């Protein structure tokens, strides 16, 4: 019976992959999967007869319907609450960077350094983008910075596919140390008492190198692909984009703001929400945005409101996803029974498999935590790998293939649409570049955490 349930679970998993690739609504798809992955293992628990299987998985199989439903549909989204709060503060901080003109000034200064040299300017802007997204999170911030940077790339004659890919991968590179994204990942690695088994220090110990690898790959990509034919295009840009590009001018002292929360967190262990708050007030003060108490209250209210609106499209998805994550825990015994003999339990082989199969992190596939990877992680957890090894193993394809390269990522959808790149053209570049990053970083992480 455990094999039958395992096969049904696997079939439903492939069903979700197919559904995601066809462009179905992911939030609803994941919700339906949470229901299937709750009902199937619970039915299996009632029907299994194999005493060895029951003894090996007594805790999971013994769970009552009431506890299972509470675990999946109540505790799951509730447990994600703290992550959501961080996401909202990150989005607020992003809004402050836009409003004070810090982002546009930074971009303008960098453009004025590089001038008409497409490669130099493009590389400098990619580095600035990475720096910004080491703290800032949210589709709103990506769009707000994208409408400034992408037209500059295009006006410099950078091919549109390269422009989109370089920008999106630079955003993704910053995400390797982004505390808001870390919060989302760390929620997958909680102990029995809810304590974090995967700390931010553990995350940055390899994340900073992963960031550098991804930036290096972006630089190589820009150097190689921008040598191709230069393009001069006649087109019109909406004035809102031009205004965003011009923006207000921020003083030099304010330009360190984008990395301030991360620096405070890494060097002084300042909690990230406090870091965002300090960063925001630093920006308001250095940019002389505060003119009185009442005006300041109105301004912060407005920026916070805009930040919350920016996160709105993600909220539903972020709250349904933990249902799916929790339901995958109920399935672990059945996946173990079916795939236990197939999945390698040697760290080197596992790292190589994850490097080779990295593209499965696209389209919400089995190697991304923002898709079916929650189930893969559930299975791997059953083998008893240490979080220090397991977390990077799955976070690498999630950050690179999904967040940086996949056309199911909300802001990448926007970027591809904005520059009129076709999905196929974008994927041809992003898949190769992302795959290279995954291979390098997986091997690096094996050397760092897998050899013990």
């Amino acid at each position, binding site marked *: 019976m455990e094999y039958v349930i395992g096969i049904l679970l696997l079939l439903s998993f492939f069903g979700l992959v197919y559904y995601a690739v066809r*462009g179905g609504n992911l939030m609803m798809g994941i919700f339906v999967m949470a229901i299937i992955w709750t009902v199937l293992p619970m039915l299996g628990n009632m029907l299994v007869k194999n005493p060895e299987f029951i003894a090996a998985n007594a805790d999971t199989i013994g769970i009552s319907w009431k506890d299972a439903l509470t675990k999946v549909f109540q505790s799951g989204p509730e447990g994600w609450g703290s992550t959501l709060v961080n996401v909202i503060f990150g989005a607020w901080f992003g809004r402050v960077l836009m409003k004070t003109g810090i982002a546009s000034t930074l971009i303008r200064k960098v453009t004025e350094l590089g*001038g008409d040299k497409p490669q130099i300017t493009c590389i400098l802007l990619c580095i600035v983008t990475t720096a910004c997204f080491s703290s800032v999170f949210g589709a709103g911030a990506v769009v707000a910075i994208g409408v400034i940077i992408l037209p500059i790339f295009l006006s410099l004659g950078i091919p549109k596919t390269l422009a989109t890919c370089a920008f999106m991968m630079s955003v993704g590179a910053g995400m390797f140390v982004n505390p808001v994204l870390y919060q989302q990942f760390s929620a997958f690695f909680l102990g029995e008492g809810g304590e974090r088994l995967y700390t931010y220090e553990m995350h940055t110990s390899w994340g900073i190198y992963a960031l550098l690898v991804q930036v290096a790959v972006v630089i190589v990509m820009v150097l190689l692909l921008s040598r191709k034919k230069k*393009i001069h295009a006649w087109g019109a840009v909406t004035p809102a984009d031009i205004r965003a590009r011009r923006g207000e001018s921020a003083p030099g002292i304010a330009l360190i703001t984008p990395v301030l929360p991360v620096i405070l967190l890494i060097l002084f262990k300042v909690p990230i929400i406090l870091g965002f708050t300090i960063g925001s007030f630093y920006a308001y003060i250095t940019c002389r945005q505060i003119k009185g108490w009442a005006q300041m209250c109105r301004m912060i209210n407005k920026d916070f409101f805009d930040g919350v609106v920016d996160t709105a499209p993600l909220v539903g998805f972020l709250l349904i996803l933990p249902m799916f994550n929790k339901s995958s825990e109920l399935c672990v015994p059945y996946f173990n029974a079916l795939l236990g003999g197939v999945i390698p339990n040697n760290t080197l082989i596992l790292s190589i498999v994850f490097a080779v199969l990295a593209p499965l992190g696209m389209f919400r596939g089995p190697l991304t935590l923002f898709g079916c990877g929650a189930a893969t992680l559930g299975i791997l957890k059953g083998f008893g790998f240490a979080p220090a090894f397991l977390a990077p193993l799955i976070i690498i394809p999630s950050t690179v293939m999904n967040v940086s390269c996949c056309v199911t990522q909300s802001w990448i*959808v926007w970027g591809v649409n904005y520059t009129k790149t076709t999905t196929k053209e974008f994927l041809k570049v992003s898949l190769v570049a992302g795959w290279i990053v995954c291979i390098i970083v997986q091997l690096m992480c094996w050397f760092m955490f897998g050899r013990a």
Partner: protein
Amino acid sequence: MIKLRETLARRLNRTQEVRHKSWPVREMVEQLTALSDAQFGQYAFLHEPLEGKFSAAQKEQYIQAANRCGQETAASWEARLSGGADCSESQPSRLLTKLAGQLGVTVQDETVPIGGGHVLFAQFVEPNRITIFRDCLERLDLLIRDEGLEDLFEGVDFRSVLLAHELFHAVEFAQKDRIYTQTEKVELWRKPFSNKSRILVLSEIAAMAFAKALCRLSFSPYALDVLLMYSYHADAACALYEEIMAAAGLPLTQETGEEPC
């Protein structure tokens, strides 16, 4: 996947949209076609990545020089292609076909829609390929018919305007070591370091002047930015119109007595 792309893109764009007043198309066209090349040059500078480095006086000088470059280049190619004979009566499209042939440029028309936040009309891919996006031209034809603007654009071949603009970039590519728009540079770094950069917008201003001269237009082709955008996004086109008028020193405020419809 396309459905998902469109839905997400729409949702993200919605958060970026800014509501603008809507202006009657005829009024916009009349105002825009009355603007001078110098006024459109100010609008063009809004797109210049190095815009912040220049004073108003410098911008004016650059605009004048770029317009002159476009006009002189058009005159010299016209003379060259006609073998010295007066060709002011010859059709622009024939002249442009000759020019494309002379430069070894292949011209292709694409029918794929190119609308969205960043609308493309035409492009020149170095060294020798020009693409005209026909979708915007077809929409423009419809718009002119629907709005009854035929009298304002009598005899204008919009495809030729787009082609002429892109052909200027081909000319620039062929003469990059001696044409003003490629040789004029500005120092970006402080001594002892040096990084001299071209001013990208000069190419665009000159290309517009070149197209205007070769297609014998009475208005700057920059006016088409608004019209071509209008077929995709009326609201954005009205905002663009306001932006151009403001850059030209004619902001559309209550004082001008102009009221949006």
